[in-house]
């Protein structure tokens, strides 16, 4: 059995007056192995962030279940840490305090010296040495998200959930932090579930990319294997022969087919929306 299983999960929101419930997504099933990096890509409003929040336990699901390491999860917990799109750092705490809050919660038995050493280790890992006592207001967006990543990695969760982590960071900084994330992930081999809009980001980081159709009633239509060997880096990955094949496929899907969920490029017509996603491998 896979490490993380999202099993036939559906989400409905109560509709407007008179109307019935609105289906955000239906019957989503996905399996993530331990140490795997899986990304969901889809247009805004397809429910991918809702899916991530359901895995995190921050939102309830309407049908189905989420199973982590053989146990069904209910509610948020330290085993599933989120890196938020808008960073979600406490503005009244320094960089050190923000991470220490997480470390103390994850390791309540540690003494002060252990906490301090652990926090400093992760601050150094994201290259923020010297910024320990700064508050988030004094940091750039890129630095803020480095703190967010350090906080998430520092509690060594079973699954890292990245919710469009670089969407609010300028393009140049984004590339640098993506590279840093690759290195952190290479060192830790965490299980990661990421949600993004950014195709290049998905290819650089992921083992598999799940393509989600547009909402309402969206679903995962295709799963693309990223057949580019690791370790990857931004400049070498684009030279791999599969890079543009994968990229073009994903973009074609997003531009032409996400609205109806038909993978017509490969001549495959869906029989029913509930069918298993098509696995694409180059």
């Amino acid at each position, binding site marked *: 059995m896979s490490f993380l299983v999202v099993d036939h999960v559906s989400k409905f929101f109560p509709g407007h007056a008179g109307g019935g419930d609105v289906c955000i997504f239906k019957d989503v099933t996905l399996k993530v192995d331990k140490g795997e990096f899986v990304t969901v890509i889809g247009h805004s409003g397809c429910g991918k962030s809702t899916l991530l929040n359901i895995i*995190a*336990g*921050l939102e309830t699901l309407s049908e189905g279940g989420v199973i982590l390491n053989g146990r069904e999860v209910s*509610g*948020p*917990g*330290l085993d*599933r*840490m*989120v890196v*938020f799109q*808008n960073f*979600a750092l*406490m*503005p*009244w*705490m320094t960089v050190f305090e923000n991470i220490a*809050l*997480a470390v103390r*919660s*994850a390791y309540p038995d540690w003494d002060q010296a252990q906490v301090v050493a652990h926090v400093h280790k992760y601050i150094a890992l994201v290259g923020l040495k010297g910024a320990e006592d700064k*508050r*988030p*207001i004094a940091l750039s967006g890129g630095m803020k998200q480095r703190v967010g990543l350090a906080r998430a990695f520092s*509690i060594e969760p079973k699954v890292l959930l990245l919710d469009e982590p670089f969407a609010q960071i300028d393009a140049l900084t984004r590339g640098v932090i993506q590279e840093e994330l690759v290195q952190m992930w290479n060192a830790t081999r965490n299980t990661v579930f990421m949600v993004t809009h950014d195709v290049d980001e998905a290819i650089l980081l992921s083992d598999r990319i799940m393509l989600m159709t547009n909402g309402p009633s969206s679903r995962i239509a295709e799963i693309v294997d990223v057949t580019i060997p690791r370790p990857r880096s931004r400049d070498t990955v684009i030279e791999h022969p599969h890079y543009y094949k994968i990229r073009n496929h994903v973009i074609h899907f997003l531009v032409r087919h996400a609205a109806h969920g038909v993978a017509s490029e490969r001549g495959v017509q869906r029989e029913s929306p509930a069918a298993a996603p098509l696995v694409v491998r180059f």
Partner: protein
Amino acid sequence: MKTHGNGSPWMISVFILVIFLGGWHLLTLRTSFDAKGKTDEQLQMMEFNGDIVRAGAGGYIWNPEKMKGVPGPLAVVEKARTELSEAFVIKGTNDHGIAYLVLYTVSRFAAGFLAASVVAILFGILLGLNRVLFRAVNPFIQILKPISPLAWMPLLLYTVKDPKWTAILVVFMAAVWPTLATTAFGVSSLKKEYLHVAAILQLSRFKRLYRVILPGAAPTIVNGLRIAFGSALVAVVPAEMLLGELGVGYLSWIEWNNLDIAGVIFAILVVGVVGVILDSGFNKLAGLVTYQE
């Protein structure tokens, strides 16, 4: 091109003060008494009424003991000098030095304001965390909030039967509503990401409250406290006047009863100075708990 905003504001402040004091002095200046055109009978009547007194050389001057019109700045300075020189003197049950009066007012204010703040913040958090309760209680807050704290005084005096406590409760009533309303608002509008982080990190109820909710809502709470502070400061003066409790508000009233208008003006100035000192203290405290986003 000329730019506006040149020059030192300090200089302008001094200029305004000089103009004000000079104008005040000139407007309240009394011309010396002129007996011309008045019959002996009229003069005798005025002397009998105490308006004028006989000066050494047989002429008359205005009676300096009898106040007429608004006193000038010099009279107020003179009054301030005597009051300040006796600041720590207690002459009788109702005649305490100005330092004591300030102390009484400040402690009365502090007691009412602090009690109101604690109660309002606790209930505000409760309401802010519970949407249903907030909506259930909000109509009552909206009705109670605009009531002048002084309107409560007769009822409070009747119930607690003690003017000391009534004065503190009037301050309490003035300070409790703004803080309550803004605390509830601040807590309920806290960014949900902060609560999400707290939930993922499995913070205990207590830790979530004092590490996340309270500091997160602190800027809004401080804004409420600031409004409450002003409103309580406004309420403490008339409360003392009406209840006859010793303090700077009482000083203003007792000087009025003595028809000592210079004393009234002095009392007004003292109220202003006390307000400024309390306010700057408050701002220092507020700076410690607020943050920038």
